[in-house]
């Protein structure tokens, strides 16, 4: 099981800040997460935006990153505090 976190405006799209699910077996790389989330939430492309980054177990990864039973995946839209 994997915790998926949807930060910032993405939680408005998903209707929830996080969920704990079994990732489908065809989701093997970070890029697959984008298309999976797109389809799951009919997200009109927000998960495909290059400025939305993916973190696996607390580390930002690129789309080619292979997934090996990750504990936690985060979708991160552009950040900024202050």
């Amino acid at each position, binding site marked *: 099981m994997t915790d998926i976190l949807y*930060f*910032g405006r993405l939680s*408005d799209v998903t209707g929830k800040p996080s969920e704990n699910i079994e990732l489908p077996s065809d989701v093997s790389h970070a890029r697959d997460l984008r298309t999976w989330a797109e389809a799951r939430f009919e997200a009109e492309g927000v998960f495909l935006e290059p400025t939305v980054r993916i973190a696996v177990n607390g580390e930002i990864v690129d789309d080619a990153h292979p997934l090996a039973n990750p504990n936690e995946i985060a979708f991160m839209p*552009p*950040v*900024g*505090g*202050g």
Partner: protein
Amino acid sequence: MSVHVNISDQAISTPELLKDFESRLTSSGGVVSFSGVVRPDGKDSRVLGLFLQSYSPMTENGIETAVGQALNRWPLEALAVHHRTGEIRTGETIVFVATASKHRRAAFEAADFLMDYLKTEAVFWKKEITEAGDFWIEPREQDYQDNQRWQQSETN
């Protein structure tokens, strides 16, 4: 060297933090502090407050890295970064940064650098709570340009 980094949903009291910061100094001649306060004017309607989300420990680790860069770049005696999360009402303080150095320029620049980091790279997500509804807000182009200055000029 005194470094304080704090991320919390508790209220920030600038006078108390500044007093505490100054009490730890022994050799500085310049102290700079910056407080970011939630403004009442939004883009279209009155702002009631902000909601700040963070992602621990990525948020903390990122700020620690930026603090390390500031310490490498400027001769600072002390540095403090306090950032609030959760619900913050208009008029309340969202961020407090303080720097101290022998001379003023290093303190000014280091505080400026840290604020630019916090505005565009620190791992926070910010939602404006307004009379017309809630809106997630992301950094402005100006914020990114401000942050770029530190890559362009290694020595100012």
